[in-house]
Each structure stands twice: as structure tokens, then as C-alpha cells.
């Protein structure tokens, strides 16, 4: 029974995922089907057993289909079922399981399928063009703003306030792209990448360089959630959702000090309180913070209170240091999946990929990616919109 008096315990009992690639032939519905079917198969159930479907997918503008949730519906198994789409920009992938959790914890449904999909390749010349419509049409678009501007400005603040250098931040890209070699769906795995490669890559918007950023991708991922009495029947290894949290800040991002994501901290506090976690660095065994850019992993790990503000890269000088601290065999494994930097970034599906990763890690099914510290508690986090949303899920085996 959780701290907030929630009636029913909810577990993840199955997960599915497609390849993540820059461009896939399948339509968004077909990708959703692959992921959803795999989740149902691994849970040992059929669509007939599913009571409700929750869909997570980010801007309609990427896939180029209005009312995208409704369009994807039948590929997600939503045909003639209670179906709802949720959307908080990049935070969607972790918000989808949160919304699915509401469905089950409330007592309303016993088995819920949560599917996240993104098909960014339909948008020409580049999905970043669709992103620019997030900017204020009067204040920002006339300046010729590009999506990467906001990341660069945020990265600059983080580096300035904490005195962190690019060489230190680049080690995160190295860690994740190397970790991704062991992820079967990875788009950008690279066993040989070095800090120098990152520092030599093309400058996009200083200080952001090409290898600091995750790519746009097509892909889908899905999980099955079940109420306690059902979960125990279906599997010997349910992974319990012990804490959920979400928080948003305003779109007035120029009125905020960007060096620290307070809204991620508030979301984390909500989730940790529910899960009864009082000392995150000690009680969390493995974490998947959202890493669309390398500095973001540090930014978010601090927001998740896994380390003190500014200290994520404190003792990290090179590749060896980062693996020692945050590699799979490290003190606190972070992004053992390879993250968005290595596996890919189909916006909503990327956050769900992290949820799947924690699920597999806690079940000891992550194969070569398995962290060795016998993980019992894991946290996945996503982030997005105009630097505004933090979504956090804590899971326990």
C-alpha cells in the first residue's frame, strides 16, 4: 500500500519494442502493432484480455496526420475499446505509463495496454521544421529560431553555473553510444566513439555539436499493465510501479534560470514520496534519465536528486571516469540501455523505451546490458515541451 493511500498495486507484465531508425517503411499504425503485439505476447495475453488502451504520441506535426491518436488507434489495439491519447511533448513516453497506471490503480480496469509511437521521417525537409511551431509566433519565430537554440542556451547556463566543460559532457555521449551496442534496436550505437569524436563533430548551435544530439527516429514501444491479482496470475516476475510523478512549468522559458530543471525535481519528489524513497542515491539501483542531448543526462540526474546540483560530472575527466561512475558496472548505472543518444529518439517511443529498459533490468532480462548490482528499484524519466515538463516513474521488482 503506497503512501498516498492508493487502492490497487499495479505491475508491468510485458513489454515490446520495434527497431528505432531514421526512416522506417512501416506506417505509424504498423509500427504500433509490432510493439503492442510483442508486449501482449510477452505478457501471455491477447487483445481480447485488454480492458483499455492508452496511447502516447507527440506532435501530430511529425507524422503529418491530424488527430494522430485516433489515426493510430487500431494499430494500438484500441478498436472498440476505451482509448485515450496523452501528450506532453518529450515527456510523453513516461507519461503514457503514468496515465495507464491511473486506469488500473483507480480500480477501473484490470489490464491496460500502453503504446507509444513516433514517425518523424514523414516530415520534410527535417522534423525540426515542425518543431518551430512550438515557438511563440510573435516573439520567437520571426528571429528564425531553430529548436536547438533552446538546448544550446540551457547547456550554456548549466556549464556556466557549475563550471562544467564540454570534454566532461561529451563523455556522456560516449557512454551511451557505446552502451547502445548491446541494444538490439539501436540506431546510433558506436563501440569506438571517443570524446575527441564528439568535440570534432560539426557545430550546430554552440555549444551543441552534432554528436551531442540524439537523432530524429521512427519507432514504437509498448507495455502491459495489470492489477495485482491479475499480475500474479500472469507472471512470477511482475515489476511494480511504485511511484509516479509529473510536473509542468510555463512556456515563459526566458523568464527562468535554465541551469536546473525544478519541474523535474517536483515530479521526482511526487514519485519518490509515493514509493517511500527518502534517499534517492542510496535507494535507486538503476536510472534512465532522459538524454536527448548529452548534457541533459547530467541536468536530469541532478533534477532526479541522484546527485547534488552541479555534481554529476564533478569527478569525471574522461571516458574511464564516466564508466566507473555511471557505467553498467559503475557506482550508479545510468542509461544502461544506451539512451536516446545511442538507441534513437522517436519522441514518445523513446521515453517508453526507457520504461521497457527498467522493466527488463529489474527482471534480469536485459542480456548483455544487464547491470550487475542486483537492481531492485529503478527510475525512468522523460522531459519535454518548451523546457517545461518532467515525468517520472519508479519501479520495483
Amino acid at each position, binding site marked *: 500500500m503506497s503512501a498516498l493511500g492508493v487502492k490497487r498495486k499495479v505491475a508491468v507484465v510485458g513489454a515490446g519494442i520495434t527497431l528505432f531508425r531514421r526512416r522506417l517503411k512501416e506506417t505509424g499504425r504498423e509500427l504500433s502493432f509490432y510493439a503492442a503485439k510483442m508486449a501482449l505476447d510477452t505478457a501471455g495475453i491477447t487483445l481480447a484480455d485488454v480492458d483499455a488502451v492508452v496511447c502516447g504520441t507527440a506532435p501530430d506535426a511529425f507524422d503529418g496526420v491530424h488527430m494522430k491518436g485516433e489515426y493510430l488507434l487500431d494499430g494500438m489495439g484500441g478498436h472498440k475499446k476505451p482509448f485515450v491519447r496523452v501528450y506532453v511533448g518529450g515527456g510523453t513516453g513516461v507519461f503514457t505509463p503514468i496515465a495507464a497506471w491511473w486506469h488500473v490503480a483507480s480500480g477501473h480496469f484490470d489490464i491496460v495496454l500502453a503504446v507509444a509511437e513516433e514517425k518523424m521521417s514523414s516530415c520534410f525537409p527535417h522534423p525540426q521544421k515542425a518543431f518551430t511551431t512550438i515557438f511563440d509566433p510573435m*516573439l520567437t519565430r520571426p528571429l*528564425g529560431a531553430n529548436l536547438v537554440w533552446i538546448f544550446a542556451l540551457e547547456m550554456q547556463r548549466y556549464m556556466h553555473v557549475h563550471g562544467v566543460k564540454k570534454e566532461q559532457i561529451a563523455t556522456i555521449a560516449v557512454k551511451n553510444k557505446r552502451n547502445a551496442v548491446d541494444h538490439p534496436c539501436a540506431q546510433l550505437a558506436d563501440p569506438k566513439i571517443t570524446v575527441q569524436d564528439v568535440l570534432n563533430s560539426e557545430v550546430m548551435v554552440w555549444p551543441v555539436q552534432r554528436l551531442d544530439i540524439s537523432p530524429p527516429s521512427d519507432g514504437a514501444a509498448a507495455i502491459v499493465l495489470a492489477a495485482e491479482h491479475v499480475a500474479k496470475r500472469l507472471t512470477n516476475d511482475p515489476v511494480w510501479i511504485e511511484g509516479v510523478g509529473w510536473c509542468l512549468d510555463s512556456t515563459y522559458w526566458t523568464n527562468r534560470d535554465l541551469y536546473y530543471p525544478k519541474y523535474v525535481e517536483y515530479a521526482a519528489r511526487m514519485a519518490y514520496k509515493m514509493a517511500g524513497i527518502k534517499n534517492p542515491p542510496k535507494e535507486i539501483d538503476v536510472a534512465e534519465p532522459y538524454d536527448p542531448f548529452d548534457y541533459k543526462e547530467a541536468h536530469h540526474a541532478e533534477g532526479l536528486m541522484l546527485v547534488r546540483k552541479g555534481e554529476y560530472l564533478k569527478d569525471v575527466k574522461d571516458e574511464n571516469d564516466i564508466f566507473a561512475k555511471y557505467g553498467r558496472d559503475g557506482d550508479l548505472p545510468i542509461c544502461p540501455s544506451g539512451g536516446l543518444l545511442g538507441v534513437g529518439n522517436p519522441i514518445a517511443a523513446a521515453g517508453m523505451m526507457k520504461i521497457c529498459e527498467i522493466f527488463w533490468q529489474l527482471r534480469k532480462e536485459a542480456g548483455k546490458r544487464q547491470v550487475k548490482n542486483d537492481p531492485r528499484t529503478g527510475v525512468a524519466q522523460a522531459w519535454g515541451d518548451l523546457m517545461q515538463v518532467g515525468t517520472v516513474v519508479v519501479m520495483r521488482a
Partner: protein
Amino acid sequence: MSARIKEYRGTYVSRKDLEEGRVPAVRDKPEARYAWAAGVAMGRFLAELKEGRIIGRRCRRCGRVLVPPRMFCEWCFRPTDEWVYVRDTGTVLTYSISHLGPAAERIEEPIPIAVIQLDGASPGVGMLHKLGEVKFEEIRIGMRVKAVWKPPEEREGAITDILYFRPLKEGEGQEGGE
């Protein structure tokens, strides 16, 4: 992943495959044209820009002077109380230089950009704009800058009525913000 799972699905296609017609596809360019209501606050803000002035709104409860102005304070969730002019000088809070245009295309002349806290706005309340007349290596957080305006006859009531912000020269403008 589970050793039980044999195959992860998805069929990769390259951009060339698509452009050269090896992968059948349908093209569409939906048109979307807008006339966004500027709103009370932005309507006044843009009109003041045309006059060469920058205006904000003050919330008396939290005391913040907000730029861009809004008719309600999102912290206090109450209407803001009065219009306040702010100066066109300010301090750089963060900055960058962009080699990319809106569609991720490389642009010839990289654009220096910054979030600038204008003198008169509350601490941390910044505005995004371009920088100019400055070498990238010289930009610093904390640098003092001043707006360079379009000549009055060219102004339209837009954020681009300010061309960019340039570093304050010796002896120009007062020190610091609020």
C-alpha cells in the same frame, strides 16, 4: 532484452530510396495560414516596439516586472496591475551562436543569440534576441548590451523592430539591472 525475443521489427529505408521512388510514398503539403490574435498584452507590446519602446507588466503581489508582458501573473494566478516601461539596455543571462536555420539547414552567417535581462525587468526575467557587432569569443554571461533599432519608418510593430543587441560602449548606459 529477453533472450526469448528473437526478432525486433522494422524495415529501414534510406532517404535516397524515398526520393528516387524505390519506396512508394504519397506527398502532401497541407496549407495552414493563420491570423493569431495578438492579445491584449502582446498587442500593446508590439505597438510600443514600433515606437521604439519596450513595455512590461508588473504584478504587485510577487513584485515581478514581466517581459514579455502578460495580463495575468502565472505565479500568483491573478491579473497583473500596471504597465511598466523597461529600458532597452540589459545583461546577457545566456547566449549561443547558431549555424542552423529553422529547418535545420546550415546558414552562411552564424547568428549569435542571447537571453537578455532588460534593465527594469525583474531578475531572471529575460527576453530572447540576437546579438550583433560582437565577436563570438567576446560574449560573456553578464555582458551589458543595448538594443539597435530599425529606423522608425521601417518598424512594423514586431520583435524584429529591434535588429539585435550590441555590447554597451564605454560610458554608455547605467550599471546593472534592478
